[in-house]
């Protein structure tokens, strides 16, 4: 294996400021368009949140254009989303019902907000029994605007554009383990992850299979009931007996293990890469997505930096030698930014590899960032508005 050159191939300032501003303009206008309703009817706190989000998202996109780096700036947005989403969500739960737990009365009245993570578990019961095994409502109601139809509609529209990149630009949970992975510099358990990467990346598929089959057999959202680590920081079934106490224990254990400790130790997104069944399901949509990451074999000298930098072990030696990523690539851009020889490139399927890769990157990023601004941005604005309410700014 050759050693990587110390000097990066890409210069620190990639584009001129003027050209970067010009390329950022569509995103700035889009952000304004998305958050105009917040200024009209959202009140002072939401207006403050909206302004901050417009500046935040536009600045990050500008920096992506200026530096040519994607991962670093995307990660700032994504970690902010991951850590601020629970703030707004928990605050709304406390204000509404005084607790993070869902009492059974709210489940039978269809007031549980729908979470996209449960989507794969719904497929078999919906297909064979026309039944949705989730205690929500199909149509939006005054008490539950996040209805099943709205959230599935949103997810499907996003998936058409992003494919598996949902996991890097839209998921409001993934930023948590990415955030904990960013703490500290020392990479422990690296050898373990490298050695067993091929097995680790199969685990989400196994969990997906179990979740889909068990949900269909038991007619309950098995992942939500037993396996979702993020229940710890969102909402969970109220503890009313041994079973619900056990469920809560599993949620907390998985959260601490997969979202906090293992990402810190491995510097990988362990929940997303080695556990999340929705992520595995989402990988299938990479097949129909137009964008991917490819490797220019003429430039690549097998230094392995791309594999080390990949947060979800979506690269293997073999796949890099074939010039491709694996199916679970979430297009975060880490390998492209890490490659010192510019061998890892953004690619539009159907076009030659490494010919105008920046054009492919731009086309992908405009769609991804527009949707990230619309969805993640509105979550951020709401969470900021919640914090503004807490602060003595009135």
């Amino acid at each position: 294996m050759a050693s990587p050159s110390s000097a990066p191939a890409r210069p620190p300032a990639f584009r001129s400021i003027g050209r970067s501003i010009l390329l950022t303009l569509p995103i700035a206008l889009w952000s304004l368009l998305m958050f105009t309703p917040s200024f009209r009817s959202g009140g002072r706190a939401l207006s403050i949140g909206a302004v901050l989000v417009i500046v935040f998202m536009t600045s990050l996109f500008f920096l992506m254009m200026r530096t040519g780096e994607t991962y670093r700036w995307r990660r700032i947005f994504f970690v902010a989303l991951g850590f601020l989403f629970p703030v707004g969500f928990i605050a709304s739960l406390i204000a509404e019902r005084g607790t993070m737990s869902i009492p059974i009365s709210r489940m039978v009245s269809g007031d549980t907000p729908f979470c996209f993570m449960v989507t794969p578990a719904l497929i078999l019961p919906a297909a064979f029994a026309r039944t949705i095994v989730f205690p929500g409502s199909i149509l939006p109601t005054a008490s539950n605007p996040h209805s099943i139809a709205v959230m599935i509609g949103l997810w499907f529209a996003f998936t058409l554009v992003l494919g598996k990149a949902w996991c890097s630009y839209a998921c409001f949970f993934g930023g948590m383990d990415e955030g904990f992975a960013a703490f500290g510099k020392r990479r422990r358990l690296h050898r373990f992850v490298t050695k067993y990467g091929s097995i680790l990346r199969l685990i989400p598929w196994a969990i997906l299979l179990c979740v889909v089959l068990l949900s269909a057999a038991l007619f309950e959202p098995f992942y939500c009931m037993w396996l979702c680590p993020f229940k710890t920081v969102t909402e969970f079934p109220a503890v009313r007996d041994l079973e619900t106490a056990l469920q809560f224990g599993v949620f907390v254990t998985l959260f601490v293990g997969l979202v906090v400790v293992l990402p810190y130790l491995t510097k990988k997104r362990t929940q997303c890469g080695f556990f999340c069944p929705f992520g595995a399901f989402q990988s299938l949509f990479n097949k129909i997505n137009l964008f991917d990451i490819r490797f220019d074999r003429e430039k690549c000298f097998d230094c392995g930096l791309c594999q080390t930098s990949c947060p979800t072990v979506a690269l293997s030696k073999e796949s890099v030698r074939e010039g491709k990523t694996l199916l679970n690539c979430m297009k975060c851009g880490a390998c492209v930014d890490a490659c010192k020889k510019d061998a890892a490139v953004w690619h539009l399927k159907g076009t030659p590899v490494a010919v105008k890769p920046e054009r492919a990157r731009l086309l992908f990023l405009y769609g991804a960032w527009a949707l990230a601004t619309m969805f993640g941005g509105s979550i951020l604005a709401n969470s900021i508005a919640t914090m503004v309410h807490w602060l003595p700014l009135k």
Partner: protein
Amino acid sequence: MRRRILSILAYTGAALMLVVAASVPFVLMGVFSKAVADAGLHIDAAYSGGTVARIIDRGGYKIVVYQPVEPRLLERIEPFVQVVFEPVDALPARVSEEIDLDGDGQPDVRVSFSLPADPNAPLRGDVTALNGKYISLTNVTGESFSRMVVRAGKQIVVRVPLNRGSVNR
């Protein structure tokens, strides 16, 4: 030539994707949401209570009796019948009603509960089975999906468990 055609198709597709992305909040999300809503799906009866069998009008309020819900093969719930009292605002402070659940003209259970003045206060109630088809519940709240007397918005939802084998669905 083939490479050129492929490239043109790829860039056309990428441009279309941008149009799709831009249309998500204005058109596409609504279209897909409507498609899901129109798909004829329903929430599992363990959560929704199932299908309404009949409505008993009590003047100011009504009692909605549902069809019995039987668990599917491996579903982890007991069979139950849901009864809903609505609206809560029209209910007397103390409710004690004998209800015919199966429509044979004979009362099957007596449901009793007192409404707390505070709508957020926990509600507890009793269900007395008047025949062997149903199971009595004492001082119950939201114990499980098959055993409950709870306040859910503007309704009081009561679920009466059935003795296994008594459901014909």
